[in-house]
């Protein structure tokens, strides 16, 4: 399944993320999360990288869920101390839904992160999407890890000057972080310019069309998987909205 056509993987990603945005029922979201996780592993995401990515994300996710749980104060009380209600059923539901929504999106993204960029570009171009747009999209995605490495380099540089970030209060730490934004953005702009120069020096954008050495073609199992996905998606949405 790892060698499925990138277009089928894109379709799977679109279906999962659409479901994550449409479903408002925790049971349905749980089902979708399981489906996404299985799909992620079957379609070729590396489990170790996925767990590492999820760990990075866990702090932010907990914060978002906590906000939903605390500030959504409707429904039946679930947990209370004396007369003060800490947790309402609607808040709990909302928290679970938000957590699972982000989980599904992360699963879907993990598959595309592992996919060969050039195959994705070839697939998108064969679908009629202009090649400049495809390259623009993937180049932007490539800059995210570069941006992160620039930021961590700048943090190391600050710490080498004697600032121990772990030992200073949060407000001062935020001040240091904010002072890093300008050099990190400037570094990203310089890298983007260098990349654009290199690409143009190799003839990028010289002609309205370009050939693709990498060719992707929908095989029998790609079509089968795509049709199954469409069928499953249609069935799930009908069941969710019309309950038959």
């Amino acid at each position, binding site marked *: 399944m790892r060698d499925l056509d990138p277009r089928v993987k894109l379709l799977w990603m679109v279906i999962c993320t659409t479901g994550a945005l449409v479903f408002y029922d925790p049971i349905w979201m749980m089902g979708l999360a399981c489906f996404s996780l299985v799909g992620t592993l079957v379609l070729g995401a590396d489990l170790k990288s996925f767990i590492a990515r999820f760990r990075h994300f866990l702090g932010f996710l907990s914060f978002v869920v906590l906000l939903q749980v605390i500030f959504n104060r409707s429904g039946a009380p679930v947990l209370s101390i004396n007369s003060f209600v800490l947790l309402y059923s609607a808040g709990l539901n909302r928290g679970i839904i938000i957590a699972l929504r982000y989980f599904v999106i992360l699963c879907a993204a993990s598959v595309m992160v592992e996919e060969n960029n050039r195959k994705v570009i070839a697939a998108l171009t064969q679908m009629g999407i202009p090649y400049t747009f495809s390259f623009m999209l993937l180049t932007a995605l490539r800059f995210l890890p570069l941006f992160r490495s620039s930021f961590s380099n700048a943090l190391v540089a600050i710490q080498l000057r004697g600032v121990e970030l772990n030992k200073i209060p949060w407000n001062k730490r935020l001040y240091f972080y904010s002072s890093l934004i300008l050099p990190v953005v400037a570094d990203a702009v310089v890298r983007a310019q260098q990349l654009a120069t290199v*690409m143009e020096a190799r003839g990028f954008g010289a002609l309205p069309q370009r050939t693709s050495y*990498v060719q992707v073609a929908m095989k029998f199992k790609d079509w089968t998987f795509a049709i199954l996905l469409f069928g499953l998606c249609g069935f799930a949405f009908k069941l969710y909205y019309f309950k038959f």
Partner: protein
Amino acid sequence: MIALEGKDLAFSYIDSPVLFSNVNIQVKKGECVALTGASGSGKSTLCHILAGIIPRSIEGNVQGKVFLLGDEIQTLSLVQTVQRVGMLFQNPDSQLFSPTVEDEIAFGPENLCLPREEIARRIAHSLQSVQMSEFRQARTNELSQGQKQLVALAAVLALEPKVLIFDEALAPLDSHHHGLVQEIIQTLKRRGKVILIVEHDPEEIKIVDRVYELRDRRIWEVYK
């Protein structure tokens, strides 16, 4: 025959003082010429002008003319330019953007709309030229700096340009890769390629025929 010529070149970046003026440089067919000078003297900028990158990709005020294999560079299309002149930059990391070596080398010929068979031939040939054939399917982010620079050189060679400009491209290399690139340059020179190498210390490059130096905003021809 003069393959690459800069005539009365002067340059300044937007809202900046003149970097250099009255620059005349000529490189003949089959010749290997070095360009040297202190940091900030404008060596890389001059290379960018000679390769047509300035003013096409980078803004600036250019005066004078550049002739590439007899034609003024301004009159050439991007396709014609990249088939005549290729440039290797200093930082290998900023030159590689594809997941595998094969994809990286195919990028240039794909832009020229060459048939797939021709792209395959060029990938094999350029990898052979830089002695990296066994790395064809390797991931670019797993290569050493020296190997990355060789792949970047192969990517430039895949466009089969007549003129090659090395913008301090040997600087980040260890002694093994430095020697290897010099060997490759020598082979390319024997094949009739025109080579311009930017280096702080041209004595390190044993294969150059002549040396130009950018100093005091002027260019001087110095003899080895």
